[in-house]
């Protein structure tokens, strides 16, 4: 049975309203402050490091993102950890909040489809994240200009833009997940707890669990162990399992984009590197090729999770 009329009627209206709500909410302010302050601390460490060491580094700006000084992790690592928190904060009560406020049936009684509400909310969340991340990106470039005094080159800007795009899709995965949970669970508290649980699992526990599971699936070969090497099977399994976590995908993609000398993201045999000039930077296009699978995975994750939420939402009863 076909429905008449456009499913996107009202998307713009919903998006503008939700964007305004997001940007003015206290919740968002707190999350932004948290990210900006930790990011500033990381950048401060990186800038101090860079001032002392490499004045002749051709990718000074990119180092700002990746250099870490103990005890703080690098700017990118902090983002990989905190972007999910921000996305979850935006999405965990997107739909069940409307249910609980009893606004859902009233809004859906207007001449729009449910699609418009869900798509509008998702786009508003993504736009909020994009605005925040772009602001952070500008902040990094600005601080780099002020404290390092070296204007960034075209390639550095291009690479940092790639960082921005990948970071937005990384946020998109978590936003989709949070919205899916907000559709499945009627209580926002449950949805938030489940989302945070998944976040902790994937960012903190999974990096520890993946090698353990890999060793159970493909036990390490004692011959390699004798030589102090990882067994290839175990290493591949570890990597495959790790890549189930969007956090890992984001980290790999960042490595490829922000460290131009990265040649491969998985285990390689020595003979595959024959003829390679180790440490020499790759051109941008090659770096993008390396991180392309990770980027596509993040985009696919965003879409798959959103579609799952969409399907559940379409079949859900409106009445409270």
């Amino acid at each position, binding site marked *: 049975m076909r429905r*008449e009329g456009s499913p996107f009627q009202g998307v713009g209206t919903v998006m503008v309203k939700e964007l305004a709500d997001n940007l003015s909410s206290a919740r968002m302010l707190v999350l932004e402050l948290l990210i900006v302050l930790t990011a500033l601390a990381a950048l401060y460490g990186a800038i101090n490091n860079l001032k002392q060491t490499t004045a002749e580094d051709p990718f000074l700006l990119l180092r700002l993102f990746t250099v870490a000084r103990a005890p703080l992790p690098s700017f990118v690592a902090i983002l990989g950890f905190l972007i999910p928190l921000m996305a979850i904060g935006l999405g965990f009560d997107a739909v069940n909040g409307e249910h609980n406020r009893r606004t859902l049936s009233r809004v859906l009684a*207007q*001449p*729009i489809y449910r699609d418009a509400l869900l798509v509008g909310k998702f786009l508003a969340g993504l736009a909020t994240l994009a605005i925040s991340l772009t602001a952070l990106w500008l902040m990094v470039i600005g601080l780099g200009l002020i404290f390092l005094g070296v204007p960034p080159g075209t390639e550095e800007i291009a690479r940092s833009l790639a960082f921005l795009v990948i970071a937005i899709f990384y946020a998109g995965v978590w936003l989709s997940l949070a919205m899916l949970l907000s559709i499945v669970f009627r209580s926002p508290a449950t949805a938030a707890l489940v989302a945070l649980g998944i976040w902790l699992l994937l960012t903190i526990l999974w990096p520890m669990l993946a090698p353990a599971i890999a060793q159970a699936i493909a036990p390490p070969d004692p011959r390699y162990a004798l030589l102090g090497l990882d067994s290839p099977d175990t290493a591949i399994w570890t990597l495959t399992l790790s890549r189930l976590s969007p956090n890992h995908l984001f980290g790999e993609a960042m490595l490829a984009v922000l460290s131009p000398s990265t040649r491969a993201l998985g285990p390689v045999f020595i003979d595959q590197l024959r003829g390679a000039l180790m440490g020499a930077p790759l051109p941008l296009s090659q770096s993008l090729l390396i991180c392309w699978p990770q980027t596509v995975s993040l985009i696919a994750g965003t879409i798959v999770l959103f579609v799952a939420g969409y399907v559940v939402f379409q079949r859900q009863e409106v*009445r409270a």
Partner: protein
Amino acid sequence: MSDPDSKAAPPATGSVIEARALTKTYGDANVVDAINFDIFRGEVFGLLGPNGAGKTTTILMMLGLTEISSGTVSVLGFNPARQPLQVKRRVGYLPDSVGFYDHLTAAENLAYTAKLMGLRPAERASRIKASLARVRLSEVADKRVGTFSRGMRQRLGLAEIIVKQAEVAILDEPTSGLDPQATLEFLGLIEELKKEGVTVLLSSHALDQVQRICDRVALFQAGHIVLMGPVTDLARQVLGAGFVVEVEADGAGLARRLATIPGVTNVEALAADRFRMTADRDVRPDAAYAVVGANGSLRKLSVDEPSLEAIYSRYFQNQTDNGGKRDAA
């Protein structure tokens, strides 16, 4: 935004909503079981019945907010399952215990839904202003809805329907939880809508209110419409007659005299000088005449309007007396 009203509704035949064998099934249970009804233009139609009888589900099916399991319903000539936007553009809905965005003001809340309706900015502002005035919320238009009482929220919900200039207003339990003053005010607003020619469909438990404003009612029970029609007709159907007249008077053979009045179906002696007559019309003048004719002195003569409450309780009482044979249906 382009206007997608390419297909106009078929010419009005008088009925704005037609349901035929409308059914909603959850699992094995028929929540709404093959109901038929017509709602005519400009009338106030009441849906009555206990909780869980299928009233809200019926309403949601009319708006295309829940899937129809089988049967059809047409609203203003449109099929809500296929053309929900056309239906929702013309039908206003006030859900059971309506909610608003508490951090927005009354006017902002209306502006959001008015935008969703696709109204132009200038039109939007004037309609919102007018509708807030209609429901007497003008002075709190710029206050946050979070501070509103329940009665004010209900009126704001009605303002939304007025902004939409809906042809049909569907109100689900609009007066539940309101204090008597707020209830009266709200019923007055519904009557104003009716005067403007808006067809009103409301569901309620508050029988006396429904009786006051509804032209016709449908009584729901376990997914069926068990009774439908004007209240007086239902009274005749269920109570046996439309009017109950009580006479307090003395006089020789008064009971016999009263029983011979045309239209009286039953005379019950409550006491030596008190009689209750059931009749299909208002027989008070005849009763007074009979008392005078019997040389009696008339002390009290009163008529009970057929009350929906009596119909309702009598109906469900009959149901249990009959051993609930409808349960098998």
